[in-house]
């Protein structure tokens, strides 16, 4: 029972940053932007979250600063890829490396440390206890006591699904990816939709980054996003950007994250348990490719 509970909680907290980043990527996916900068945005968000939380003692300021930091990357992305028409792939790779360099530089410059900055003054994002519900066995134990950002991710999933498929904004967004010339000729600049999608991605990745450094753990480490942005990209591709599908895939990755932690208890070397989410991505990719091939042959 305890193991199952630990596994489920590990799954949820492992899934949250991937889910938030992937939802952000879903906007750009539909808008036809080949955006691979989620990794850098997560990392930037994580850094600014710690920065804000440490100096003001308020996790809320940390989260806001995280969003602002990730938005800054979005703005650079917009400047280069949308305004100056630089290749999106190049922009994304350069931004990811810029994020690694800039956060390492600021870590050294502002906190005067190399590698890891942890301090009791960093205020974590609080967990939400649900009175009454917490008394229900199992279900209550899972639902109550989750980090606030977990609920934000749940809301963001529903909101993203609604926005993309049920609103005029979503229609225009998808049109920007589907047929930009057509959208332009109907009076809506497709570049504006692309820019908006990147801003949405910045906000969500900022939240995801804040969860990484103020929820998942309570510190900032160099390159702490550790490929989660890439995994979120894989998640988007696997389900063709559908928000509900993304949530499901993120939970799957979160599960492998939790499974890794569990296996560590059985004397599997920590390095191998850490590989589990990446291997899981490869397996998921295998099934995706197999299905696509079947559809093509049918």
């Amino acid at each position: 029972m305890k193991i199952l509970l630990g596994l489920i909680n590990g799954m949820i907290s492992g899934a949250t940053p991937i889910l938030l980043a992937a939802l952000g990527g879903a906007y750009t996916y539909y808008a036809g932007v080949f955006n691979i900068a989620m990794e850098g945005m997560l990392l930037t968000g994580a850094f600014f979250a710690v920065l804000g939380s440490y100096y003001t003692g308020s996790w809320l300021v940390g989260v806001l600063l995280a969003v602002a930091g990730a938005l800054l990357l979005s703005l650079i992305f917009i400047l280069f890829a949308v305004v100056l028409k630089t290749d999106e792939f190049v922009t994304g790779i350069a931004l990811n490396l810029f994020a690694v360099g800039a956060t390492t530089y600021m870590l050294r410059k502002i906190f005067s440390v190399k590698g890891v900055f942890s301090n009791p003054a960093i205020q974590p994002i609080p967990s939400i206890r649900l009175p009454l519900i917490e008394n229900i066995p199992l279900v209550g134990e899972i639902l109550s006591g989750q980090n606030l950002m977990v609920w934000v991710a749940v809301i963001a999933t529903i909101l993203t699904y609604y926005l993309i498929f049920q609103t005029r904004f979503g229609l225009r967004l998808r049109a920007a990816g589907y047929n930009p010339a057509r959208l332009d000729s109907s009076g809506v600049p497709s570049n504006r939709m692309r820019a908006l999608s990147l801003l949405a991605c910045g906000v969500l990745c900022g939240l995801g980054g804040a969860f990484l450094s103020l929820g998942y753990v309570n510190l900032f480490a160099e390159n702490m996003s550790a490929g989660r942005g890439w995994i979120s990209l894989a998640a988007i591709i696997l389900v063709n950007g559908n928000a509900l599908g993304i949530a499901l895939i993120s939970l799957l990755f979160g599960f492998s994250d939790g499974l890794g932690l569990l296996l560590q208890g059985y004397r599997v070397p920590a390095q191998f348990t850490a590989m589990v989410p990446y291997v899981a991505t490869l397996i998921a990719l295998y099934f995706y490719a197999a299905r696509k091939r079947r559809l093509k042959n049918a």
Partner: protein
Amino acid sequence: MRQKLLNALIGILIALLLGAFLLLLQGYDPLATYESLFRYSLFGYYPFATTLRNAVPLVLPGLSAAIAFASGVVNLGQPGQLVMGALFATVGGLYLDLPPALMIPVLALLAMLGGMLWAGIAALLRRFFDMSEFIVTLMLNMIADYFTAWAITAPFKDPAAFSPMTPQINPNGWLPKWGEFNTMILFMFAAVVLAWFIFNRWKAGYEWRITGQNALFARLGGCNINRNFVAVMLVTGALAGLAGGLVVMGGPHRFIRGLGANYAWDGVMIAIVANNGLIATFLYGLFFSAIQTGALGMELITNVPNEISQVLQALLVLVIVASREYLNTALEQLAARRRAREVRT
């Protein structure tokens, strides 16, 4: 050619100006910073030798990425292939005992084998299961990272060391030095020449390039696309693996934690900045190496943290690529306008 050079110089100039602005914002003297940055990397015998040597692990993955991208293969697995190559060379160096004239080539080949193996996995997954090499190589990077971390903490750990690292490899496998010049730079020169020759003069290289430009045309022309794909993966994997092996054989002579650093990703960036040109990749590799090498001396003199070099590099990439594409369109517009005027008169 002249226009390319002009584009590059304009891009570099703008990027350095932006960098100077960033330095000014933080209260540093940009002129003194740049002066020491290049004084400690280019001017003088020792700085220049160090820059050349540090360029090796940038240029080789850079060549790997350039060949892959120009052939239409999205191999982003250079980081994983590099550390696997380093691990193979290290293990070979621990257990083999041959005279240096044999040992060094054998270890270099082992490093290439390690990189090929890791790239080969991605190639096979793509070939037989249609799994996109883009995501696969990225995931394999993370797996290689953890795998090598395990290898140096458990089976191959130096029992005398406190942190995870292997013992030193057999001294017969150490790359000799000529004065301050480490012989690993010879491998780099050889790789650049060979890669250029294969890519620009051989039939195989021609097929790869054509496939990168227009896969359909290449297939209709009789190229075996699938075989070429696997070949490009293996060759580019070998190049990245060789970089890892050379880092071990020329530097710490053992596999230490964080050995791969950011080399391979820097290499990918260099290939992108060079627009997948092999000679340009080599030159930009030297330039980026100069920035990284000089950054250490700069920190000593001006107190600017050397991590600024990473920021400067990303800035260079973005600005050079953006200004190249922007200038090209601007020049085309100009030419079109001139032609229009000629027609009118």
